[in-house]
């Protein structure tokens, strides 16, 4: 027992927090888009996948040019990828979701599935079905902390994730544009009457959410080293789970939900074994939806249909 607490417990918590920070980054985009236009963007996980493939191409050409890559170059690539995936997110919203803004919810959901399919199999047509090896892998020695192993890349990635979330929080809570976003989440029509360009704010929301998902994709590629065209499917589902656990539509909820889900998964894997990890996660989702569908931080709203 003592050994469990000193060794495994810390390791489990650390692993959970690390994976959870990825989930939180992807969940933020889900949650923001849902909060504003009540749309479940199924393609969000695929933006994550797209991010890692864009970084794959960019890093591959940089390495072909310079012969090597380092952390600053990775950060630069991360920035470019975020802008590109953000742009793709805006494009998707413009082409696929905006024409259906006033359609029944079922139509929009099906469109989102179609977009997700298009992205996945578009990438498959370009890069082939086999997994690609990410050209640059973060490596570094690990440090013993309280009996658990913490590696330097993990710390770097978590710092990046925390930084992104902090900036996002400042933007949404302090800036004028952020205030417009929150206003639209409350009442789009009234916000329109107050002179806010609602369409532009929605585009911006898609940009931010997709950029964060793209960033998570680059980080996952650099950490795990292998990417494939279906990698966004599972993480999209899990990010949605995280958003629901935290309270969908709530910014802090998405962050908290990501970390909680990471921890749950880490402990669940420890108890049940790795092959049951995804089953455990989705069972958590169903459980949460039946017991507390508004999530940990969500407000109690009587919402139907």
């Amino acid at each position, binding site marked *: 027992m003592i050994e469990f607490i000193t060794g495994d417990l810390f390791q489990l918590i650390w692993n959970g927090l690390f994976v959870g920070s990825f989930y939180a980054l992807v969940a933020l985009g889900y949650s923001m888009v849902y909060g504003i236009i009540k749309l479940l963007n199924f393609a969000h996980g695929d933006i994550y996948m797209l991010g890692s493939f864009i970084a794959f191409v960019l890093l591959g050409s940089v390495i072909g040019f310079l012969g090597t890559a380092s952390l600053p170059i990775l950060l630069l690539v991360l920035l470019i990828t975020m802008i590109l995936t953000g742009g793709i997110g805006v494009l998707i919203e413009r082409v696929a979701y905006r024409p259906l803004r006033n359609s029944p919810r079922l139509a929009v*959901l*099906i469109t989102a*599935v179609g977009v997700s399919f298009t992205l996945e199999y578009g990438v498959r047509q370009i890069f082939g079905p086999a997994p690609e090896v990410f050209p640059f892998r973060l490596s570094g020695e690990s440090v013993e902390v309280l009996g658990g192993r913490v590696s330097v890349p993990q710390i770097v990635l978590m710092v990046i994730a925390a930084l992104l979330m902090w900036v996002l929080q400042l933007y949404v809570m302090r800036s004028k544009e952020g205030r417009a976003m929150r206003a639209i989440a409350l009442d789009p029509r009234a916000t329109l009457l107050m002179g806010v360009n609602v369409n532009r704010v929605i585009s911006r929301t898609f940009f931010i959410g997709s950029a964060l998902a793209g960033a998570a994709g680059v980080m996952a590629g650099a950490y795990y080293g292998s990417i494939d065209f279906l990698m966004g499917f599972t993480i999209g589902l899990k990010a949605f789970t995280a958003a629901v656990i935290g309270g969908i539509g709530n910014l802090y909820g998405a962050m908290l939900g990501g970390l909680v889900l990471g921890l749950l998964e880490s402990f669940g894997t420890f108890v049940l074994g790795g092959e049951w990890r995804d089953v455990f996660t989705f069972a958590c*989702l*169903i459980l949460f939806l039946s017991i507390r569908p508004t999530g940990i931080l969500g407000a109690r709203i009587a919402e139907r249909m």
Partner: protein
Amino acid sequence: MATTRSTDAAARGAYIEAPAPLHARPAPLSGLLAPQRFMNTTGLLLFILALSVPFITASPYVISILTSAFIYVMIAMGLNVVVGYAGLLDLGYIAFVAVGAYTSGILTTQFGFSMFETIPIVILACVLAGVVIGGPTLRLRSDYLAIVTLGFGEIIRITATNLSITGGASGIHGIPTWSFFGWSFADGLELFGITFTSKVLFYFFVVIVALGLATVGAARLSRGKLGRAWKSIRDDEDASEAMGINGYTTKLSAYIIGAVWGGVAGSLLASHLSAISPPSFEFLYSALILMAVVLGGMGSTPGVIIGALFVSLAPEFLREFSEWRYLIFGVLLVVVMIFRPAGLWPANAVLPFLKKRRIEPLTTTNIPWAAEAKQAAEAKQAADAAQGRDGDAARGPAENGSGAGRDGGAR
């Protein structure tokens, strides 16, 4: 005063006269070109055509792809109940097919059941799965259901991969074909000098079960009381609950019936393929069935049949196309939803050469009391005009306000 008297009359059992209908009721359409009869006849002819295919060509390849295509039609009909009639997006529908296929597979290969005997257990298992998944989530918003079913599809697939009773990643092999009370399709059949092989017999069976029973059953369910309740829930849940329809149980019934359809189709699939494994039940296949329903036309029987045949047979006809088909399907899904959301054959479409029901427009000549009503309206208008423009001005904003309030409520 008037109300008390009429309730008294009702209490005494007196007959209260209903108001006369506004339109004269049109006579029912007759002849072969009446839409309902025409579609039924066409369906019957196509069914007979499907039954006679083995007499036209006995190529095992044709029989085999047609068998899969018709099983596909049955799966799509099941999903159509959930998505098309009840308006619930199910993204893990293949999970029910998996439940059916695995239940049959395990019972036949490991417990010595015959295929015929597994069907009640398959139905039971699917009802159970439907209740477990639908029970908690159908109380929530429909998009939650979509994502939960997605998760459920993954749960079933991963569970099948990890358990030993389902054969792990390699799945179950040697699933037998159908047999009835000791006589199996595998024995073949000699009738009027023609030998029917087990594949052909199974094909006949699939045509009868999948095209005949499943398709007609689902289409007729949709026209009955339950089906009309599904459609009204789909169109406006609040309004139909106000009309006395229990939204939750109605949605749950659609979900369970969809699950049973999928499960029985899965059982057919298992004995058609004779081997099943987890990769056959990936999300991809759920999405393909959804495409069949959406492209064909949600809630439309001919549409869904065409959609399912297209999605399942297209890769056979266009070999080069098969590499690109998923990408094309994805784009098609978006394009159809934006430009033709009702699909290829919309649910309420009537072929242009069929007879249409014509409803006489209201005129003063065909309604006895219309002249009086018109007079009364004119008199009222004159009275309003005498009151001046104040009345109009007072009424205008109030109407606008209620209109805006209604829009806001619907949002």
